[in-house]
């Protein structure tokens, strides 16, 4: 006799092993479906957004307020010292600034002359607050408090401290998940300045604690790349906008194949202590389409 039998007067329940089987099949189907598509994203993300995100916002605001109060008490003395030091620096920088302004004026003039003005630093951005971080210890993703109702879309680039943090990989109505470039499964195509050689920057869990990220596939034929060189996102990436600063080269090693080089990059962003980020509201593909129309 089948175990799924309704006895008289007993509430009907499916035995747990059948339930386990059904849910396993459901999970497998969901995994297969969401591997390539974002079928369930809209209903589930919206539901999660309305139930959980308000709480996360509240908690993160309270936490921030508390930590700020304790920091304030700690820092007053440091600030007084720093203030005196900074005043000296202001005087120094003011004189330096005048020189730089002259240089800038000259640069502008020369660029106009050469018609070289690049679309640089002209990306529009939206500020967002980090409200929760990854629920596991394997990846370093986080959730911010802006979603598609604020105009955020998947694949938008995220910055902080003037450097690249990652990109949006999932959006709800009032939240968005950001996959950071130090996450183990993240790869970014980048360029070394000033040489212009391309390389791949990949996140690595093992290196995360040392504060560096790995780069590889650097074809540096004339050995021009040195530690300290700037690494920015390359123009050939299809997800990341060009010329966003990632970090500076820390060490370079020649690979066993004697052709490519790999090593470590020190990122400019402090991933541990981020609280607010900037989301660039332009998508790479969108920019390319606009260019094509022109």
């Amino acid at each position, binding site marked *: 006799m089948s175990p799924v039998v309704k006895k008289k007067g007993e509430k009907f329940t499916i035995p747990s092993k059948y339930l386990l089987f059904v849910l396993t099949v459901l999970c497998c189907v969901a995994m297969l479906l969401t591997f390539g598509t974002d079928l369930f994203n809209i209903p589930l993300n919206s539901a999660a957004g309305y139930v959980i995100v308000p709480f996360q916002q509240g908690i993160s605001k309270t936490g921030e307020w508390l930590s700020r109060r304790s920091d304030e008490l700690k820092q007053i003395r440091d600030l007084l010292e720093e203030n005196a030091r900074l005043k000296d620096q202001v005087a120094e920088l003011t004189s330096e600034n005048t020189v730089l302004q002259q240089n800038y004026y000259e640069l502008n003039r020369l660029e106009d002359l050469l018609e070289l003005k690049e679309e640089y630093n002209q990306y529009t951005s939206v500020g967002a607050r980090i409200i929760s971080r990854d629920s596991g210890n394997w990846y370093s993703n986080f959730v911010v408090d802006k979603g598609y109702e604020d105009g955020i879309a998947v694949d938008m680039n995220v910055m902080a401290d003037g450097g690249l943090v990652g990109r949006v990989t999932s959006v709800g109505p009032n939240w968005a998940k950001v996959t950071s470039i130090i996450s*183990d499964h993240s790869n970014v195509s980048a360029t070394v300045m000033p040489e212009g050689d391309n390389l791949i920057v990949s996140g690595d869990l093992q290196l995360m604690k040392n504060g560096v990220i790995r780069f590889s596939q650097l074809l540096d034929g004339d050995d021009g790349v040195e530690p300290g060189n700037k690494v920015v996102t390359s123009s050939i990436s299809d997800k990341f906008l060009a010329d966003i600063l990632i970090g500076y080269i820390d060490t370079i090693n020649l690979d066993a194949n004697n052709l490519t080089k790999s090593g470590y990059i020190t990122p400019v962003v402090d991933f541990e202590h981020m609280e607010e980020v900037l989301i660039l509201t332009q998508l790479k593909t969108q920019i390319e389409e606009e260019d094509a129309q022109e």
Partner: protein
Amino acid sequence: MLRKTVTALLILFCFLLQTTVFRSLNFGGIIPNLMIILTSSFGFMRGEREGLLIGFFCGLLCDVFYGDILGFYAMVLMYVGFVNGKFSGIFYPQDIKLPMALILLSDLTYGVTCYVLLFLLRGRLDFTYYLLNIIVPEAIYTIIVTLLLYPLVLGINGILEAREKRRAQIFV
């Protein structure tokens, strides 16, 4: 109905704690896994069926917010809850050793499963590194948090069970 509401609130509460408060209370970047504590303790307290359902919903929550694909954490946690449910026959509320051992074992299994499926399959072969730096620290932190969270879960379950017993008697 009351049990369902209370359990849902408990899952929500733990998920919020894990993703916000414990992120600030991390030790060397490691946070405890409250979802495992919840799934596993409901598994051995209430049996296979409830264990696997609670595991499924805990995992689904992680999937929606932090999963790359939907259903991965849901499936892993569902099996954790189901296997813990097998031990409900030898569980006594007075005994703390079995729950601790089961939660520790569950978290270690969960860690190894995540490593194999998320990292080993992508060619990250240095198992000892991940074991010593991610899996074991997480398990230890989880066990410490269990000492605080488990009595709460046990107490809530006790109150609910007492209430259900009273209502059953009224109907008889």
